[in-house]
């Protein structure tokens, strides 16, 4: 596998010298470094795998790009149409708009509101785009079936599901209305081989549609089946 370093001009996402640390005021103001000086580019249709040992800061990189964590220093440049925006410097309102229109995030653990059925959780991104409810639900049902979710679970809240089932609902919601940039945190970690293979097939499909993907994988073998490039956070972290 080739290590990704060369900046290309056709990139969709360019992360440049991004750093993040936490100051815990109520614990003697200690500083915890999440990661520092991270730089890489991702092209449309490319899947870049973020690798490194546990605690290296991989999840924090995704959260900082998505602004769940406040960026320390550096840039996160995203091409949207003819416009180049810095996600590390834009306003909160702008970030909300970019999240709505351009960036999908499948977090490691499913975060949803209670009392919403699995089908509606998955259909929600389509409904938000103005798709009719019946139509959106039908598509959600298809996707849940493809991911081997049992039919009798469809109308229940995923909060009661097993870890693997929750993860598949999370992925289904993240890919049903794919945006230009997709962030994935260990999407196959608690999946059996059959479900994991289906997830990889779906990701492959997204790549062919030109979606740009930044992903963390738990399992090196699965990562190598799908990644175009790898960025090891420890090797590049000075």
């Amino acid at each position, binding site marked *: 596998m080739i290590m990704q370093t060369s900046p290309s001009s056709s990139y969709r996402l360019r992360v440049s010298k991004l750093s993040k640390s*936490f*100051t*815990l*005021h*109520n614990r003697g103001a200690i500083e915890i470094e999440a990661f520092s000086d991270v730089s890489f580019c991702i092209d449309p249709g490319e899947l870049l795998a973020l690798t490194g040992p546990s605690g290296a800061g991989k999840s924090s990189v995704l*959260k900082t790009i998505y*602004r*769940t*964590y*406040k960026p320390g220093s550096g840039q996160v440049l995203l091409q949207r149409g003819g416009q180049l925006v810095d996600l590390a410097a834009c306003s*909160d*309102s702008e*970030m*909300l708009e970019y999240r709505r229109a351009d960036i999908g995030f499948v977090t490691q653990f499913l975060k949803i*509101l*209670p*009392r919403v059925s699995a089908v509606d959780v998955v259909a929600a991104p389509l409904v938000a785009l103005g798709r009719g409810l019946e139509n959106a639900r039908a598509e959600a049902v298809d996707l849940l079936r493809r991911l081997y979710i049992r039919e009798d679970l469809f109308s229940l809240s995923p909060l009661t599901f097993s870890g693997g089932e929750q993860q598949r609902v999370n992925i289904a919601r993240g890919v049903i209305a794919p945006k230009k940039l997709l962030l994935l945190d260990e999407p196959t970690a608690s999946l059996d081989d059959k479900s994991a293979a289906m997830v990889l097939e779906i990701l492959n499909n997204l790549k062919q549609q030109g979606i740009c993907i930044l992903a963390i994988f738990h399992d090196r073998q699965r990562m190598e089946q799908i990644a175009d490039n790898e960025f090891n956070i420890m090797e590049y972290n000075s």
Partner: protein
Amino acid sequence: MLLEIENLSKVYGKSCGQCIALTGDDMGTAICPVCGAVVAVNRINLRVEDNEVLGIVGESGSGKSTLLQLIYRDTKTTEGKMFFREMQGEDGEPVDIAGLNMMETVLMRNTMMAMIYQNPRLGLNFLFSGGGNIAEKVIAAGQRNYEDIRKSACYFFEKTDLPVSRIDQSPETFSGGQQQRIQIAKALAASPRLLLLDEPTTGLDVSVQAQILDMIRVLQKELSFSMIVVSHDLGVIRHLTDITVVMRNGSIVEQGLTDQVLEDPQHVYTQLLVSSVL
């Protein structure tokens, strides 16, 4: 931009003239050390975009309710400006709503902005029926025909999951949760661009709270208005809002995307607030 607040302050009581400068979070107090006046809101700047949901958290007495009351013009501004896009001057530019006269304020409340109070007695007239409270707004918005007014009242009752069969009863006869629903129904009748909610579910049973929060979320998405939600409860803030503002001593100490404020709080006070619920 729907609402833009610049340097807004509110002093309760007679001011010695230095109150605002001598208070605020950097001074560690909201009480003027010279004259003892309370500076409930201290030089606040805030923006709300279309369809955005802003949350305001902070301990009791930090000025959250006063801030909403200033925007809704329940109380007079001491200093600062508030530009609300829906209220325009003759030049078509937003006017400073801090300077509205009474008629203009009534117009704003009838057709552009609405408030849900924690205490339903502040938001509803208990001498009218539930439907009558809604009809008041429907009439103010221009409907004159009795049948149409009644139909609208029924529509908003249904929209907020209230039993239409009880539309002629006084709010008194409804449960606390239903009284909040009547307030919401009344607010919707003004077809607001901005909805202000002051602790809308505080004091209700947990299950009733959940239903009302769900309903507010659905209505906000469906009807696309902006909201400012005041709550001391981070669960409510997480459930409803996109952006969160943290207040203490009348000042904003932190502001950010709601998930960021909850997962990566910056200010010492916010870190304490977040860690105390985990």
